[in-house]
Every structure is written in C-alpha cells, then in structure tokens.
C-alpha cells in the first residue's frame, strides 16, 4: 500500500529523471564543445592581463573575482550560522 506522499514523490522523481536523461543525451558529445570563445580568450590572455600562470586562478580571482567574494561570503555565512545555532541560550 503506497501512501499519497510516495506516489507524489514517484511522479516528481520520474519527471525529473526524464528531464535529466534527455539533457544528458542531448548535450554536445563529450570533449567537443560547440562554442569556446570566452574560454579561449581567457586561456590566451590570462598570462598577459593577469600575470598568473594558472588560468583557473586567473578566472577565480580576477575575471570572476566577484564570484569569489560571494563564495567567501557563503563560507562566512555558514560559520556565523553554525556559531549562532550552537550558542548559549541564556545570558
């Protein structure tokens, strides 16, 4: 006997499964991306513009530095949250 919850879950699960399998099959074949304009620009220029041998670091701290600020903020938020949750409740 299946509960209502299980049935709803199964429907949701199967819809997502169809979507995921289709997207896995329809994506460009592995190793042959169609467009690489932005990434090729970064590979070619990261050494000259940023001065970093490691293009990934060039992306992380320069081209997409604002994302890294957000990422650092996420960690900061998590630390603040965990300390808040385990605080002493009485003064």
């Amino acid at each position, binding site marked *: 006997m299946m509960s209502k919850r299980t049935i709803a879950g199964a429907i949701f699960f199967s819809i997502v*499964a169809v979507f995921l399998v289709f997207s896995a099959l329809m994506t460009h074949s592995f190793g042959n991306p169609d467009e690489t304009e932005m990434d090729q620009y970064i590979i070619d220029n990261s050494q000259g513009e940023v001065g970093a041998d490691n293009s990934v670091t*060039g992306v992380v701290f320069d081209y997409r530095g604002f994302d890294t600020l957000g990422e650092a903020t996420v960690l900061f938020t998590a630390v603040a949250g965990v300390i808040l949750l385990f605080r002493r409740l009485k003064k």
Partner: protein
Amino acid sequence: MIYNIPFIAVAALVLIGLYAVVFKRNLIKIVIGITLIESGVNLFLITLAYRQDSTAPIWHGITASSNNVPFMSLPVPHALTLTSIVIGVAVLALMLSLVIHIYRHYGTLNVNKLGGDEE
C-alpha cells in the same frame, strides 16, 4: 569514443541523490542525498570543461607566444566548480548542525516521527 557516458553518469548521480531525498525517511540519508545531487552537478560542470586531448589550463614555463602552445581545457567551469564545492561545504555544515539540533529535541532522525512539539 566514449560519446556521452560522462553525462549519463551525471544524470545517474543526480537521480540517486534525488531518490534518497524523495523516498528515504532518515534525515542523515536526506543530507547524503543532497550532497550526492551536488556532486552530480559538480561533475557535470567539470565534464563541460573537457576538450579532447587537452591539458590542464596552466602554463608551465611557456607563454602564449611560444611555439608549441598546448591545447588546454576550458578554465571557466573549473572556477565555477570550485565555487560550487565551497558553497556545498557551507550548506552541508549548516544542514548537519540543524540535524544535530533536531536529534536533541526529538531523539529521532525519522522524518515521520517529528512533530508534536513541546511549545
């Protein structure tokens, strides 16, 4: 040619995680399911970076004007994955602390047995 096997693996990972989230009743298993979905998405990002016969996007002692410039994989997905992993750690830490609190209050991790509060 391995065609789209890595993408199928992504779909499989995400689906296993989603299965745990939807059908399992134990909070720790739900948390594991969410981290599995996250690994699947990270794997998807990192597979997008690969170009056939490419090396890591790091210049070792050569410049872009040298003769034998290596063929490199795409750097942006690497950076996105890095960000996504750190975000995953943060979410995991918070979820586990909440699970600890829930266990303290109710003495159980079963979702069905929660509720019926003291208030």
